């Protein structure tokens, strides 16, 4: 068992250990066949895979290693709208998943199940996501699960079918990339700002072909929620996966969850998980060091997650681009975003605010945003919504009274799902609308055709909702220090 890991004296990275634990076969001249411990399934990328199995007369090899839910195209407006989905094509897709899960014996968390939620929220919540596992899903943000020290990556539908049929995937071995973030985060700087800064530095293809391991004191100091935010956006830097070493924070999060080991099995599991961390002398193919103390709250200005600037900065000019190709992208992005170089970020007005997505819709995100919102009201020019990432988060937030904070401030309080992160359901921007969003992609049309997206942290999204423009959370906190500090969010079941 875990001792098998320690007999090998060659120092290894965490990725290397997890990889080696899952090698099924290494056929000469072919990719390695890797065992997949868990496949997460949702309605959008699975119907063609189930059909493929049926057409080929193949079985789902390990139904017990699959978990399914609906998230991408379910409406978030009301329970009733979810139970009877008006959009017939969406309804057919949700129904297809229901039928497929019943036929193939996959555990399915339906639209109003207490465990329903964005697929990358529910894996960790159930304790199905654990250190050292290999996890895949037909969704690029599967990298989220790497926050637990799992090797987790997004795949296409043909690969989804491959995993269904064989519980394996042929994989070429990625290279390793350590990003070391050292020091204490300054006031107002969050996990979201760390990852936006990283993508801005290395570019949206900066980590293509690599698995990133995030390390350093700033990463260790983060909660699991913050770590998930960082790993979630690894794909936005092109990485195959992002990983963070499991530690006491990880174990404390997992203990007692539905699919976590119990009693003596828990102790053995923790012992094994501790052995997964990168050996002291292990080497990486590439390394990057970041001084956390120098970070500033960061926002995207353009149409790619790498087009970032600090909140105290200005919209760049195409002349600032590093290459001719970038110059062309900058020009196009400025036109799409309807922005002029030199405009102060804080002067950019927004029409909509979206607090949600697998990047930032966990309880900690909602607490942080509620702290900013309490005692204020959404600007009259802004439409703002909170879409909790899962039923569990929604329930927890309601127990803590956060829903009331948001609702009384003029936010819409929605049912869980992917919602306006990708606008597959009715939650979309209108052409020309500008949105401050806690999601992960600011591509052209991502949140609705012609919509303009600025990615930022939950706190900054909340502040933008109130002021009506992008807002430096450091100044906000300073200006509202009194009520901000007094505004302690209620403890579960507590009173005001």
């Amino acid at each position, binding site marked *: 068992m875990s001792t098998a890991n320690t007999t090998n004296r060659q120092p290894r990275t965490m990725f290397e250990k997890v990889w080696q634990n899952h090698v099924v076969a290494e*056929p000469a001249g072919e990719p390695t066949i890797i065992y997949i411990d868990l496949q997460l399934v949702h309605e959008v990328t699975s119907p*063609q895979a189930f059909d493929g199995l049926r057409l080929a007369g*193949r079985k789902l090899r390990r139904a017990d290693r699959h978990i399914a839910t609906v998230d991408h195209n379910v409406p978030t407006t009301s329970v009733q709208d979810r139970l009877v989905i008006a959009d017939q094509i969406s309804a057919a897709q949700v129904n297809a998943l229901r039928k497929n899960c019943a036929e193939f014996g996959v555990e399915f968390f339906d639209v109003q199940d207490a465990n329903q939620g964005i697929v990358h929220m529910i894996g960790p919540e159930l304790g199905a996501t654990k250190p050292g596992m290999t996890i895949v899903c037909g*969704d*690029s943000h599967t990298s989220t699960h790497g926050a637990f020290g799992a090797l987790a990556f997004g*795949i*296409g539908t043909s690969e989804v079918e491959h995993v269904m049929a064989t519980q394996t995937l042929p994989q070429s071995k990625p290279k390793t990339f350590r990003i070391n973030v050292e020091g204490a985060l300054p006031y107002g700087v969050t996990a979201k700002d760390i990852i936006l800064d990283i993508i801005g530095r290395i570019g*949206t293809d900066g980590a293509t072909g690599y698995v990133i391991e995030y390390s350093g004191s700033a990463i260790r100091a983060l909660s699991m929620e913050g770590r998930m935010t960082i790993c979630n956006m690894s794909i936005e830097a092109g990485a195959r996966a992002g990983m963070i070493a499991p530690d006491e924070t990880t174990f404390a999060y997992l203990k007692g969850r539905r699919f976590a080991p119990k009693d003596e099995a828990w102790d053995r599991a923790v012992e094994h998980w501790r052995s997964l961390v990168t050996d002291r002398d292990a080497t990486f193919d590439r390394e990057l060091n970041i001084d956390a103390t120098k970070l500033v709250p960061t926002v995207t200005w353009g149409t*790619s997650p790498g087009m970032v600037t600090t909140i105290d900065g200005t919209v760049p000019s195409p002349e600032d681009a590093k290459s001719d190709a970038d110059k062309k992208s900058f020009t196009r992005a400025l036109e799409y975003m309807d922005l002029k170089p030199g405009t102060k970020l804080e002067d950019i007005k927004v029409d909509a605010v979206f607090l949600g997505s697998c990047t930032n819709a966990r309880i900690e995100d909602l607490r942080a945003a509620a702290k900013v919102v309490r005692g204020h009201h959404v600007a009259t020019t802004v439409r703002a919504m909170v879409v909790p990432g899962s039923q569990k988060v929604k329930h927890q937030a309601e127990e803590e009274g956060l829903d009331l904070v948001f609702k009384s401030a003029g936010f819409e309080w929605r049912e869980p799902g992917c919602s306006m992160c990708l606008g597959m359901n009715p939650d979309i921007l209108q052409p020309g609308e500008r949105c401050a969003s806690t999601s992960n992609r600011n591509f052209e049309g991502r949140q609705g055709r012609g919509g303009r997206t600025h990615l930022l942290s939950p706190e900054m999204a909340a502040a933008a909702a109130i002021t009506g423009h992008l807002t430096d959370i450091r100044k906000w906190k300073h200006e509202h220090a009194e009520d901000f500090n007094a505004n302690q969010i209620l403890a579960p079941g507590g009173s005001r």
Partner: protein
Amino acid sequence: MQPINILTSTAVPLPLPNIDTDQIIPKQFLKRIERTGYGDFLFYDWRYNLDIPDHVEPRRDFVLNKPEYKGSEILIAERNFGCGSSREHAAWAINQYGFRAVIAPSFADIFFSNAGKNGIILAPLTDAEVETLIQRSTANPKHLITINLEAQTVIDDEGFNAHFDMDPFRKYCLLNGLDDIGLTLRHEDDLNNFESKHDNEFWSKPKANEAA
């Protein structure tokens, strides 16, 4: 999957970097449960003027709508083609539109994998080589390019001759049109052996608690 080796065709230049899968196929077409019928939706928001409600009109200035590029089987773009979402619908749309190959300086990871599963050749060339081909196909839409998968070359009749890298196994699968579930199942004994051991190890159980 259809085998492919030598492809001679005109090429459609799309000189932008970081073309993401949301552009290749927008979200509204991801609700379909079929695997076919995506070709008409390729580059939908770029290809059609949708500003008039309930009216879809091809944008005449978009390259795919120019008659001189009709029937082309090669797409040329700049670096990091296919970044973003894992949607295989992007590869389906490219393939079903009629493209059999994409030439670019680099490709995003998941798209790269999806393209391979759909018999699409992805030929990575240098920035300068891609630039040359873009110029030639822009200046002359009838400009013919030949991709030879076996030889891993891209040539034209104006003296362009470039070599591209490709993983030998990926090449073998493309040349032979192989479905890789079947290939993996050649190792079923290894899989059974691995699984019987792995199943007893606590780290591998998604549902450890219920199984205990």
